[in-house]
């Protein structure tokens, strides 16, 4: 982890964090060629849905003959959105957000390269490059660096996703503020002394303490949230679940989302959080699984809003997945890896209540099997980064998303 980040950490711990945070923003302003004044209170949450979320399942088109003729059916209880799209009933908790303008949907989003391997596609999504391996770090880490706010990102849970990784594996922190350490303070101090001269270990430990301090955590019911889907052997009862990339269990999202909200709500805290949710790789029995997966997602986003409190007004949340799924179901009541999928945008800072980007229609399918991609996911990310977080267009085109000058950030996403 870089020196500038340690400085940020030090400032935070000293309690003058608010000033340091703002100074960080001003430094970024001063040094960049940006024309736009960033919102120093802006928060951003990226929700990674690992496994390939079926966007067409999330946003059924019950009146669309072409959609129905694929062999899909719109689940009972779907709620109307706009332009022929409906919302899966398990996402109903989010429907009021649509009405109040704090939810938007991108129905056919995807990546610049067609990769049907989870790991490749996830890496591409998180690297933010035009090709695989274009950057060894994550785009969100680079965005934070561009803002001079390298210490401002947190991955919720244990383990750092690529999107927040910096050079030499450093970067943001994976923290779990919903959970108290189960070891006494004296021992932690002794270990801290032992790790004093080890950069990787000592900065990680310091970061864990900082996150808890910021979230003001003292949960009545300590949630021991292990990342990684606990296999059924270990006592969990979820039959026939598909694995979904580098996954975290769907239900863990609720506890983590609340932790993320609290962390971001603190005025001296992080500006950016990444939550991961897994299990989206619905090769079989998809409709049953989606009921649960979407319900968990909705609960998570609601918990996030609750944790954020008033800071919700300054937050934008984006969900993203590595690819969508085949337009037609397969032989095991599921779908296989596809292309275009849906993204959800939410938050008080969002200009929502609308469908974002085009719907390419279903008369032609990509490689005769997938929903075409009408919106590059990077365009969505860029739009949010530019208008909400104040990252300069130059930085976005060259550094944050390398070689992406041809991919224009979407405008009008932010209030």
């Amino acid at each position: 982890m870089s020196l500038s980040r340690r400085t940020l950490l030090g400032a935070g711990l000293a309690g003058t964090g608010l000033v340091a945070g703002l100074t960080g923003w001003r430094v970024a302003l001063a040094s960049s060629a940006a024309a736009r004044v960033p919102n120093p209170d802006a928060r951003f949450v990226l929700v990674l849905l690992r496994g390939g979320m079926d966007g067409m399942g999330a946003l059924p088109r019950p009146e669309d003959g072409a959609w129905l003729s694929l062999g899909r059916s719109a689940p009972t209880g779907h709620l109307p959105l706009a332009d022929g799209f409906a919302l899966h009933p398990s996402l109903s908790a989010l429907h009021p957000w649509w009405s109040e303008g704090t939810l938007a949907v991108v129905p056919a989003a995807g990546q610049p390269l067609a990769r049907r391997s989870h790991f490749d596609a996830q890496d591409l999504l998180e690297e933010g490059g035009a090709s695989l391996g274009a950057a060894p770090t994550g785009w969100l880490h680079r965005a934070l660096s561009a803002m001079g706010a390298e210490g401002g990102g947190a991955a919720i849970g244990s383990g750092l996703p690529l999107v927040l990784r910096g050079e030499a594996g450093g970067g943001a922190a994976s923290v779990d503020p919903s959970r108290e350490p189960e070891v006494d303070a004296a021992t932690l101090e002794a270990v801290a002394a032992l790790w004093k001269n080890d950069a990787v270990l000592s900065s990680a430990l310091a970061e864990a303490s900082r996150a808890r301090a910021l979230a003001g955590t003292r949960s009545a019911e300590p949630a021991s949230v292990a990342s990684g889907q606990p296999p059924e052997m270990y006592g969990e009862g979820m039959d026939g679940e598909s694995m979904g990339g580098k996954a975290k269990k769907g239900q863990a999202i609720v506890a983590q989302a609340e932790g993320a909200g609290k962390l971001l709500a603190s005025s001296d805290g992080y500006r950016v959080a990444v939550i991961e949710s897994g299990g989206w790789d619905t090769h079989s029995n998809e409709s049953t699984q989606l009921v649960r997966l979407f319900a968990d997602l909705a609960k998570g986003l609601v918990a996030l809003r609750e944790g954020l409190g008033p800071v919700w007004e300054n937050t934008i949340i984006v969900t993203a997945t590595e690819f969508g799924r085949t337009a037609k179901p397969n032989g095991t009541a599921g779908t296989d890896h596809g292309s275009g999928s849906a993204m959800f945008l939410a938050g008080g800072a969002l200009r929502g209540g609308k469908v974002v980007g085009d719907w390419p229609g279903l008369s032609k399918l990509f490689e005769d099997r997938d929903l075409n991609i009408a919106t590059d996911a990077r365009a969505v990310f860029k739009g949010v980064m530019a208008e909400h977080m104040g990252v300069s267009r130059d930085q976005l085109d060259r550094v944050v998303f390398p070689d992406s000058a041809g991919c224009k950030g979407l405008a009008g996403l932010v209030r």
Partner: protein
Amino acid sequence: MDPVDLALERFGLGARPGDRERMRDPVRWLTDQITPAAATHASLATFGSARDLQIAGAALSNDDRKRQAKTTFAIELKARVNVAFTTDTPFAERWVRHFSNHFSVSTRRLQTSLFVGAFEREVARAHAFGRFSDMLLASTQHPAMLAYLDNEKSIGPESTYAQRPARSNRTAQSGNVDEPGLNENLAREVLELHTLGADGGYTQDDVRALANLLTGWGSDERNQFGGGFYFDDKKHQPGSVTLLGKRYGEGLAEGVRALTDLAAHPSTARNVSRRLAKHFRIDHPAEIAALEASFIESGGRLDLLAKLAVGLGWSGAARVRTPDDWVTALVRASGGSGAYAAASRGSGRPNAERRARPEGGGRPKRDGAMQGERKSGGGGGIQRDPWVSAMRSLDQPTWGTPTPEGWADDEASWTGPEQLVRRVEVAAELAAWLTRSGSEAFTNVQQTLVPRMSVAGRTLFERAGDRTTALTLAFCAPEVLRR
């Protein structure tokens, strides 16, 4: 690290008391372990095969089969952990575990859980020092793998099975009669993970071709034909396919031929060598190239690969051990399974139980899963097993990889802030048990771990207020966390 330490820690599973003193020639000690006997491990000889398990399971009700899976898993897990704590051939054991990870199957599915131990034995152990192509075939035909990656359900679009009108009830569920049942999962992972690697030069057409070749590869779940691998030609896709530029016809033998060809592909040599190199900290490009060359020239002989590997990686950078690796080393350093058994008999472990609680903060779930967990007999005790709860807390539940990619071997994946806090928790808990149990652990650790600590670390150890804290520090020393 000196050569003796490297042999014991990087190539072995961690020094036990006296190991260091007994070591004469580190490389010789390693190469002596490159034998089938060392890989298969005597203590596991009595365990049944996957076929045996299927035959036994076929007669059971659904509920009993679940119980069979849980009980079998619990027993297999304990055996495996015990091997790790006590083995005299730790390099062979590490080699086996690496390849088990290469062909990762996970307990995600209950069906797989029944077989994970058998899979490791029949795939990784049986072929650890044999030919890679044999290991690949064993893996791809194993009931665990076939269940894990959905191949059981994969049906050739023009197969006999697909043509039958009765079947259209199933496809009507999905509503799609155009493409009844090809599932690409297994084919994809064989290409992406087991053989060529993601950048190995295959296309989506190749995935599809291999998927077609593998239709019908299943297992005799209901013991109609003696259990084990069973090729159902009614599900098999007729006709021929082109895979990586080669034509293959229909039938089981052609699928086997395809796998043999994949094993011999140069990209496979590269992929296997790279993953191996990462695990053994073989960083130098020339050394990795040597591994690749050996693999190609020998036709995938893993014993020759191992002999070469033990001569390499001595200068590679130490990286943080995975949780499994680390706790195993701690237990070995403290005095092996005796100390662990003594320690785990210790008084009530509220922390372990809390960590073993399912996710979601322990709030009771409506679907009754939590109630079921507490009441279950047989394998129900596994939640209280200290190893199990430690591994869950540290994100590495044994045989429970989140993806077919297996466990990562880089440092960044294991050194997030939260992860390191949990390591301290586990270290403190282990230290407390060992102290309470009055075992020889403290003396042993002074002999095995403390000498490897830095001067500053040793000072902190000596100045620690009590034995538990001292042990915790030794367990968390950077030199002990890494290999």
